[in-house]
Every structure is written in C-alpha cells, then in structure tokens.
C-alpha cells in the first residue's frame, strides 16, 4: 500500500540526503506499507530518467533504482534473462527495466550525483514483465544479478477495475 507523504513527515536524514543532490525537478515522497515492513520512497526525474530512492522508516538509505532502456543491457545479460522468462512462461513482454544499486550511503550518493558507475556498489536488474501461461496472463516482477542470474520473482497483484468497466 502506497500513500503520499508530506515533506514535513519525511525523516530528516532522508530529506537531507535528497536535498544534497540539489535536484532541479520536484521530488515526490511516498510511504510504502507492506505486510511486514514499511519504507519511504523518494521519486524524481534526473537527466530524463526516473529515479526511485528507498529508505527505511528511520531514513537510512536502502537502495537506488533507475529506469533504463532494456536495449542498453549487454547481450549475455539479456539472453540469460530472456532464457529464464521463456522457461517460466509461454510468452512474455518486458514492460519496464530498472537497475538497482545497493551499498554504502556515500557510494550511493556519488552514484546519484555523478551518474557514473561505482564498482563497489551491488548491481541488480529489476524487470517487470507481462507474462502469459496456458491459462492466464499476469504482471511479474523479477530480480536478476548483474550477470543476469535469477534471484527472485513475484506476481504483481493488479487492483480490480470492475468499477471502471461496468
């Protein structure tokens, strides 16, 4: 469950972290409430790319996700991801690709500020794909290592739309 968060309700260290980036674009803050945990997310655009910075409830940074074009991934990584999706489903279509960085706060800050790759950060790929099996179609979120090896997958539950259809 995601709800908008007012800037005044954002932990000061998370706010300071984002403020230090001196972003030109507006930052939107969200509170993400899962079954087991809560987190805070800052979403913004930088250099035309969608960024999402996730913090824990105390304002400690957890990861940075940047939306990228699927085509920019190296061929062996793409092949490995596609092979895995083909094994799981009859048909699939990749709808969103994100590169996820985790690691030290300072390194993440440098990454966000410069946009340049930082070797000491852990890199993973988050893929959102429309997948079709024999019986149904669904939206899935996959996480792969920087080499394209499978880590985990989960189905994204779409909100009902009956009230928009009938």
């Amino acid at each position, binding site marked *: 469950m995601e709800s908008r968060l007012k800037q005044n309700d954002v932990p000061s260290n998370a706010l300071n972290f984002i403020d230090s980036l001196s972003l030109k674009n507006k930052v939107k803050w969200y509170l993400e409430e899962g079954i087991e945990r809560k987190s805070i997310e800052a979403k913004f655009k930088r250099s035309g790319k969608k960024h999402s910075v996730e913090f824990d409830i105390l304002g400690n940074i957890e990861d940075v996700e940047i939306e990228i074009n699927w085509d920019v991934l190296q061929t062996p990584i793409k092949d490995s991801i596609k092979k895995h999706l083909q094994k799981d489903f009859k048909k699939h279509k990749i709808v969103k690709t994100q590169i996820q960085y985790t690691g030290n706060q300072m390194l993440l800050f440098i990454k966000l500020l410069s946009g340049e790759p930082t070797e000491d950060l852990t890199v993973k790929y988050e893929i959102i794909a429309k997948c079709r099996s024999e019986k149904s179609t669904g939206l899935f979120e996959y996480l792969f290592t920087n080499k394209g090896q499978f880590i985990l997958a989960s189905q994204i539950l779409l909100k009902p*739309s009956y009230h928009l259809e*009938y």
Partner: protein
Amino acid sequence: MLIINSASAQSRYQIGLLPSINLNYKLENDWSLNSKIESRQLLRTGDFNGIAESKYTYVLTDFSMVTAKKVGLNSRVAGGYLIRVREEKLFHRFIQQYNVVQRLAVFRLAHRFASDQTFSLDEKPEFRLRYRIASEVPLNGESVDPKEFYFKFNNEYLNSWQDSDYDLEIRFVPLLGYNLKNNNKIEMGLDYRVNSFLNNNTRHSFWVNLNWFIEL
C-alpha cells in the same frame, strides 16, 4: 439567436436518483461474472421555461448479468443480458462489450466499446453502439489503496437506432469514490445525460448516483 431560443423552448429536464449495487465474482481461468441491480426514481420533471413538477415517482429497475473473459493483461471481452422492469412491462437487452484499462503513472483510464439490442412487446427493437472513457484519479498517492478516496469521471457517447429514428446521447458522470477495501467501493456523484438534441427536443437528465461495487 432565433434558433437558440427555439431550442431552449423545447428543452426539458428530469432530476432523480440512480442507485446501483454491482456484484463481481472472479472465476477460474480469467473468467468473471458481473451482476448489477440499478433502480431509477424521479424527483422532479420540467422544462426550462419554468413549468415543473416535483413528485417522487418510481420509474424502473434493471437486473443484469454479464460474463467476461480476460483476453490480455488489461483487456476483457464480455457479454450478457439485462432485464428491465418498467410499469409491469419487460424489456430484454443483450449486451456485448470490450474493455481496455490503461494503467498510467498517476491514474487509470478505461475504454469501453459496447453494443446492445433491446427488445420488448410494446416497442420497436432498439440497437445501440456506445463508447465510454472512464478515469480514476487517486486523491492520495499514485494508486487507490484501501481507506482512500478517488475521483472518477465517465464520459460516454451512445448512438441509438430505433425503427427509423437515430439519436445520440452524451453522458458526463463525475463521481467521488471511497475504497473501503480493494473489493468494496462506494461512489457518489452526478450522472448527467443529454439526448434528443439532434431533433431539437433536448432532454437533460440529472441523476444522483450512488454506486456500491463488491467483489466476492
């Protein structure tokens, strides 16, 4: 100017209530069922020259059952049957529709392409082709979560043919919704309809909508 005066002289209106209960059942293999009960009650009728009558009148009740199959991640084809009970007369309507829901960054857009055919003993068959665009805008966050309000706006265009007559009806429906849970929503607002304007006999209808959507 003369034309405008003449048009407004013919304009009639009606004001009433249009509550509905909408039950949805999810079945196996991407099939689903929708059943709906909608009732129409009139509170006031009149024309824009000032002649009006305020009186509570029960008008009709519609009972419908539509079955749908998901054909894509965001699309569904559906077909069903509606029976209308109006002053002890029965109207039988067959419905076909195709829905596509677009999930955009901060709101959802739904397109509905539909056709229906209505038959009764007392009237000539009526055939309609309709298109509706509906938007849902969350009033908190990027999506509508439980215990959150949303704004919904429907705009529909209905072409109808009955005997040799053609008519176009346009609907504008702004609604305020509350998502109690993802399977339970309540909406309230205005359902404004305008028709018969092509033959200079414009009728405006203002229905107060109260919708309850339940997913079982």
